[in-house]
């Protein structure tokens, strides 16, 4: 029988690593559309994303650990996004910024990917067209919580179970 409770030292190590990771977010801004303006507003001094330790965008995926997908992704751009995501070193996280990246937004046509979660795994969804900087900061703090909860080896906590009533009738869980 294995121990179910983590030991004192490994839990301290997890906390320390999580704390270090969540306050040193190096983001890769994958900016394709108008959401980029709101992303810049968030990054600039008025809202100051540097307060959260995320003030240094890296324009190389090898140096980044959070991929900010900001703006509409077209089918032509989809292989590029996938490649950028593959090039990032673990541990890595993905933030879908704006409704176009979450669901396709108001686009429903031949050109647009209906949500980047059809291509790559997404950690935090920030809806809005475009989202206000407050929402971005809220999403960033949720991402920090998620990073803090992650195991030092990169193993993520089990998925949250959603209450049954929000699921569709007849949907098997």
């Amino acid at each position, binding site marked *: 029988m294995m121990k179910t409770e983590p030991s004192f030292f490994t839990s301290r190590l997890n906390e320390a690593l999580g704390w270090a990771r969540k306050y040193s977010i190096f983001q890769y801004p994958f900016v394709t559309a108008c959401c980029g303006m709101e992303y810049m507003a968030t990054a600039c001094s008025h809202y100051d994303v540097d307060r959260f330790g995320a003030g240094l965008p890296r324009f190389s995926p090898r140096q980044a650990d959070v991929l900010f997908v900001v703006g509409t992704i077209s*089918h032509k751009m*989809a*292989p590029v996004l996938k490649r950028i995501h593959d090039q990032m070193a673990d541990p890595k996280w993905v933030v879908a910024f704006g409704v176009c990246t979450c669901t396709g937004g*108001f686009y429903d046509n031949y050109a647009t990917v209906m949500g980047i979660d059809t291509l790559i795994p997404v950690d935090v969804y920030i809806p809005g067209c475009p989202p206000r900087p407050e929402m971005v900061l809220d999403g960033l703090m949720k991402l920090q919580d998620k990073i803090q909860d992650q195991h030092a080896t990169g193993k993520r906590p089990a998925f949250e179970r959603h209450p049954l009533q929000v699921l569709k009738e007849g949907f098997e869980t």
Partner: protein
Amino acid sequence: MSTFSLCTSVTDRFPDAVSASHTYRDDATVVLRPESLLEVARFLKDDPALQMNYLMDVTAVDYSAFGQAPTPGFFASSGVAVSPSSQIPDEDPWPGPPELARFTVVYHFFSTAHKHRLRLVVPVEESVAEVDSLTDLLAGANWLEREVWDMFGITFRGHPDLKRILMYEEFEGHPLRRDYPVKKRQPLIGPDN
């Protein structure tokens, strides 16, 4: 030069090439027969009174569903007016679609010297779907004609490099044709969502 005299300067010079012309809300439009497009464009560019040296845009219209009720879509009506606003005084009635061809290719010419503009409309049948390229005359037509080919499938005779510009090479069909299914997607990777 007024929009009316812009129209007449073309129609007087090329009486056989012009099938219709009108001015509507201070915009001059000349409808041409396809075979005389190059000749008229060269005249517009070289004539000292016109000097239309800038091709602002090339686009096309698919009239195959013109006048029919729009397909019920996912989205409700956007509320965008489909007829001219009654707020704007209208001396001339709206002239309507040029003539019964499936496509029209539309050229917008502008003169940087005289600051006037003129629209050329060329009706194109689906069975032919080909017009002369203006790339020899105006180099800026290159990418604009590639876009029209990409979106509507109208070929340009004499274009140096007619290939897709907006969509990817693997894409099949021409998405702005009215018979292209509205929600048909051709993803390069990922599910067909």
